[in-house]
């Protein structure tokens, strides 16, 4: 689901950003197929240790490339993003198709789930339509066998005229045969293709006409391009416009004629025809037992998706996973241990002593070991406070993600999310946002429409506190259930209210929701640990420099008194909120990282400087307040200057506004929390 940061390969990965120069003369092998069919495992089996992961040019989708040697020949193997059909809906699918159309693969390996061959075979037919050399791999043969499905590989091979191989990629079974077949196909110059799909006469005639008009060189068949043109594919149209110039008008005429003659859209007619052909290819080749009665997993899955039982299950997961595991254990026990025993008693005294001994100037001493010193504050916050919380969160998230629970949660929550202009799919970035909003903002790419991406970016920045912040706030409010209730109610209200407003104001269509629900499975420990490690590493690499920079900036600010000026500026609005003037400092720090501010609050609260109402107001303001610098930069990177800065300004005004109103209401009612 979240393959953006975590390549499933557990081998060494070399990141070469943006480097996509094709290696000349080396034959390419593209692995394609639906999501969740085991493409990456197959890729790992085929390739050697070093895989390159890089963004596909002009997109944010990552593609892995590796090398493979068969019989003295070296090949480049490409692991494409999951695709359902040749008409892409998401950016991932579009990248996968581009690899097929532009990169001229010597062999295309289509991986399908043997259990769902009927549904996935039409994509094979579409690849054959492109005249690409194809090898079909039926993966997960063991699972198919367990389900009582028998498949006659030879018969399918005969009917399609291409190599068809059964494999169990997780056990490495079938890899040798696959390599042999790949080599054979790569050497072949002519291809036999028995399964050319013939469509109804109107479409066939139109295809012939378009084919004769396409004059430029393409590495896939003109027929397949014509097909995509008839399906009104924007990307292919642009390609043709670029290459053909004048002929486009004539093609246009054909397209409108076909559209007028057909009762249904061309893609619908063709999909039906493809299915017919796929069914006839598989006729007598598959013996499918009736689906077995429900096992424990299916019953559990059923209860997870039924609101009456699903909501309690969600609450249990939240309570055990988030509150107990991340909050109590991570943010409580572990943080205390590292803070108290490691830093307060060991590192800090040592650093202060060492710096005092070595550095004669007080102002320079301050930089390293002062109240806001690089080591005594910046490094301490990052290592003692943030690292354990984030590690615990990502550990939990990886377990939940690998168990297959998220799509079920998406299904449960879709109806509610529709009200705020999002679909259930957005549940993944939203949940991830509780770990790290910056990373979650990056993941909003997986949402299909720009409107959903803007709304989710906004909500992440405004009302989803990240794990570091959440950990500190939960610790702050631990002994004060009433304050916590006010805070939680306020944040939930803002989340829904702003989402609702954004959905009303932003132009564009309401999202529609569709998602595959994979079977529940026990997460593999190695996989969970790898994912956690990669994410924590990414997070730490982003965060530690920011903490250090923040410390340095604060230090500069303090000695140049620029800081006092800014704090002075913030003092007025802070007083408006009914808060002690010292909190101005927290807001300023909060901009560097929200948790940085929250941690400052933690220190202040220890000195009993805030009343219950003040604590509620400041926690609400700080949760809603501007995202940390990293997220601010990410917003601009992902959404562009205008939207990124716009979102930040709205949030700045809004966080103070809401906190102001909350303070007014609470003081007016004379509430004591």
């Amino acid at each position, binding site marked *: 689901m979240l393959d953006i940061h975590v390549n499933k390969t557990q081998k060494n990965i070399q990141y070469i950003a943006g480097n996509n120069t094709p290696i000349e003369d080396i034959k390419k092998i593209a692995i394609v197929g639906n999501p969740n069919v085991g493409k990456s495992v197959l890729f790992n089996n085929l390739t050697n240790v070093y895989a390159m992961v890089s963004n596909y040019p002009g997109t944010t989708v990552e593609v892995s490339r590796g090398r493979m040697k068969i019989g003295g020949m070296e090949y480049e193997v490409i692991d494409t993003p999951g695709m359902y059909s040749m008409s892409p809906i998401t950016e991932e699918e579009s990248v996968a198709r581009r690899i097929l159309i532009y990169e001229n693969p010597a062999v295309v390996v289509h991986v399908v789930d043997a*259990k769902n061959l009927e549904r996935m075979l039409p994509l094979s037919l579409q690849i054959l339509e492109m005249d690409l050399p194809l090898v079909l791999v039926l993966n997960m043969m063991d699972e198919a066998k367990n389900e009582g499905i028998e498949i006659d590989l030879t018969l399918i091979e005969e009917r399609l005229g291409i190599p068809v191989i059964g494999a169990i990629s997780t056990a490495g079974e079938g890899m040798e045969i696959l390599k042999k077949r790949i080599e054979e196909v790569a050497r072949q110059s002519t291809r036999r293709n028995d399964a050319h799909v013939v469509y109804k006469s109107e479409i066939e005639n139109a295809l012939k006409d378009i084919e004769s008009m396409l004059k430029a060189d393409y590495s896939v068949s003109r027929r397949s391009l014509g097909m995509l043109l008839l399906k009104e594919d924007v990307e292919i149209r642009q390609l043709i416009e670029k290459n053909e110039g004048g002929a486009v008008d004539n093609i246009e005429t054909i397209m409108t004629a076909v559209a007028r003659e057909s009762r249904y859209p061309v*893609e619908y007619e063709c999909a*039906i025809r493809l299915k017919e052909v796929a069914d006839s290819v598989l006729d007598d080749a598959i013996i499918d037992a009736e689906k077995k009665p429900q096992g424990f997993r299916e019953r559990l899955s059923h209860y997870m998706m039924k*609101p009456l039982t699903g909501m309690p299950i969600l609450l249990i997961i939240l309570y055990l996973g988030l509150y107990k595991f991340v909050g109590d254990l991570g943010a409580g026990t572990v943080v205390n241990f590292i803070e108290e025993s490691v830093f307060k008693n060991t590192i800090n005294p040592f650093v202060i002593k060492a710096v005092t001994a070595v550095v004669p100037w007080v102002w320079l001493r301050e930089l390293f070991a002062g109240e806001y010193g690089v080591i005594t504050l910046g490094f301490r916050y990052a290592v003692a406070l943030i690292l354990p919380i984030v590690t615990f969160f990502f550990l939990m998230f990886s377990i939940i993600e690998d168990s297959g629970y998220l799509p079920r949660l998406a299904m449960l929550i*879709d109806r509610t999310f529709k009200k705020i202009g999002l679909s259930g799919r957005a549940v993944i970035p939203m949940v991830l946002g509780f770990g790290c909003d910056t990373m979650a903002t990056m993941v909003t790419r997986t949402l299909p429409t720009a409107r959903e991406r803007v709304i989710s970016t906004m909500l992440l920045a405004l009302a989803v506190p990240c794990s570091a912040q959440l950990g500190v706030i939960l610790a702050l409010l631990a002994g004060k259930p009433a304050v916590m209730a006010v805070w939680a109610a306020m944040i939930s209200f803002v989340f829904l209210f702003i989402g609702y407003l954004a959905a009303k104001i932003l132009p564009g269509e309401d999202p*529609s*929701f*569709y998602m595959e629900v*994979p*079977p529940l499975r026990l997460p593999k420990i190695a996989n969970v640990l790898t994912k956690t490690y990669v994410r924590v590493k990414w997070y730490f690499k982003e965060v530690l420099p920011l903490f250090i920079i923040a410390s340095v900036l604060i230090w500069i600010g303090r000695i140049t008194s620029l800081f006092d000026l800014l704090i002075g500026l913030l003092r007025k609005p802070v007083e408006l909120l009914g808060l002690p003037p010292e909190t101005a400092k927290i807001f300023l720090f909060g901009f560097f990282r929200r948790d940085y501010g929250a941690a400052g609050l933690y220190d202040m609260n220890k000195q009993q400087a805030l009343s219950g109402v003040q604590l509620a107001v400041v926690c609400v303001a700080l949760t809603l307040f501007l995202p940390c610098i990293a997220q601010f930069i990410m917003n601009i990177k992902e959404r562009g200057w205008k939207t990124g800065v716009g979102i930040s300004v709205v949030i700045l005004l809004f966080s103070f506004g809401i906190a102001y109103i909350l303070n007014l209401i609470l003081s007016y009612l004379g509430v004591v929390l």
Partner: protein
Amino acid sequence: MKCSLCGYTFDELEASSGCASCGFSKGCDLVRCPNCGYEAAPDPKWIKRLFKKRRNNINPMALRSSSGVNTEPDAPTNGIVPLTALTLNSKGEVVRILTEDRNALRKLISIGVLPKTEIVLMHNFPSYVFRIGRSVFTIDEYLASNVYVRAIS
């Protein structure tokens, strides 16, 4: 229903495809014949009920579930319901996807919801969950309302 002008037999679901370009199509009770374009009022419900029995006798093979080169008229709609109306835990065969929304159509095609596909409805709230073969998918009410199925016992 049968068109009173040209005698073409069609189902009312299909008829709405001719209404897309009409500005009055929302909340309009008239049915437009897909063959000749003549607008008529649909048969009242009680008449439908009256003729229900008779229609059950029609050869189910005449129910054109796939499009293709043939242009033979569509059979009546008996037993065909939107996926949203299919009984929970029952099996249905997709008869057609009926929508003007190209994106919705593409999404449904991409997950394999196509005529002649058998699906089992597993949940209908808060979203629709169904099984095709051995895969499970979830879609929202909007997408589900575009899928017409014939219940299979």
